[in-house]
């Protein structure tokens, strides 16, 4: 019976897709994008091309199937590079400046005049002092206080910032490490901002 069920599923699937997915050929979407951003310099071309993970996330409106979810997390976890010295925690003060800064990678940011920022406050509440925070991501107030400073907890936060898809496939958050938005040192500073007991996040 199994092959028949599978065959039926294959027949039904495209119709179900057509109901909530636009009937647009993906290749055409890509060609349209290429044409609309044709002034992009050659080294910006990769920005126009979604990788496998982004393709799957976009096609499923960020709700991948269970199988895709597993595969994405495995694939993305493999991209994470760890600090050479095994230390995940930097300077929370530097981290706070990074969290405030939205500088970098916009087409008006060249040649770079500042390091790239993480712009964390754009989407997350993080400290009591900063009332101008966004709500696309969850509040991170007291993040470290709730999790402690055990090495495994620090490593988990590092991984979450480096590549959020490794722990939650199709997360809306940028892959700051994998996409080379932030350096390993910068990510360590953000880990400190979240986890250091002295950080304003944990006051």
């Amino acid at each position, binding site marked *: 019976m199994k092959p028949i069920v599978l065959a039926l599923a294959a027949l039904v699937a495209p119709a179900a897709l057509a109901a909530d997915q*636009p*009937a*647009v050929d*993906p290749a*055409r*979407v890509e060609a*349209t*994008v290429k*044409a*609309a*951003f*044709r*002034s*992009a*310099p050659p080294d*910006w071309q990769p*920005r*126009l*091309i*979604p990788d496998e993970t*982004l393709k799957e*996330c*976009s096609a499923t*409106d*960020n709700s991948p199937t269970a199988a895709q979810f597993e595969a994405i997390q495995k694939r993305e976890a493999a991209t994470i590079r760890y600090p050479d010295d095994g230390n995940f925690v930097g300077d929370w003060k530097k981290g706070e400046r990074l969290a405030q800064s939205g500088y970098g*990678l*916009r*087409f*008006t940011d060249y040649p770079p005049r500042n390091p790239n920022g993480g712009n964390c*406050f*754009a*989407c997350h*509440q993080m400290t*009591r*002092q900063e*009332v*101008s*925070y*966004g*709500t*696309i991501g969850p509040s991170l*107030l007291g993040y470290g206080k709730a999790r402690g400073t055990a090495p495994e907890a620090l490593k988990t936060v590092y991984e979450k910032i480096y590549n959020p898809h490794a722990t939650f496939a199709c997360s*809306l958050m*940028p*892959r700051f490490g994998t*996409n*080379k*938005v932030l350096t390993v040192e910068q990510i360590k500073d953000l880990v400190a901002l979240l986890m250091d007991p002295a950080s304003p996040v944990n006051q």
Partner: protein
Amino acid sequence: MRRPLALLAAGTLAALALAALPQTPSRAQDGETEKAIERYRQMLKDDPWSNPGLLDADRGEALWSRRRGPQNVSLEACDLGRGPGQVEGAFAELPRYFADADQVMDLETRLLWCMEKLQGFNRSDLLKRPHPAGGQPVKELGAIATWVASKSGGAKFAAPLGHPKEKDAVALGQALFERRSGPFDFSCTTCHAEPGKRIRLQGLPHLANPDEARKVIGEWPAYRVSSTHVMTMQHRLYDCYWQMRMPELEFGSEVSVALVAYLVNKAAGGEITAPAIKR
């Protein structure tokens, strides 16, 4: 002097309202913050003549009927969909398919086409710097678009979907709206897929939801207080892609038109209030 003063006063009151907020964030404070921002918006809206965008609409009206370009003709022969020179209500029925160009066009793309084909302007010149820098007034095409949109004030969005290419533009727009790429992995849905979200203090409309799309799409072209000029819808999309760390979106591109088609389709039945005032 009255207009800038009115704006300044509104801005100052809003800043005071925001500064008066308690310093301990909470869910309740989120609500207070939203209310303070809403008061600021309301103050900007209360005096419709305080809207500097109306000056650009006036400029656009003069530009429409002035003989310009290498052909030295006005745009009065430009067909925005209701026949040559018919401006009243035209914006409410855009984007639409134009047989002469064999493509779907939104208002700005259609004006680009008329300025090229009728007035003889060089297309690549018009594409070079289509949007104003901060503090600079909206470009001529944008001023004309502001006026044309204002001539559909009070009308409701009713873009036609009878032509297959019109349906196709909406579907393409949806695919683009949901498409993630770039160094931040963003799509339009990153910010606009849920109700009640903010970037910093700026509220984000859930644009796939017709109720929310109807409230905001008809506001564009709009005078934007933070950049002190009128921003057209295509400029708004260009600015979103800037924020998304994507390259410069080409004016009049198929991506621009398809996204406008998708948004206007979501906003179908929504009232046109352009030029509105935005933060």
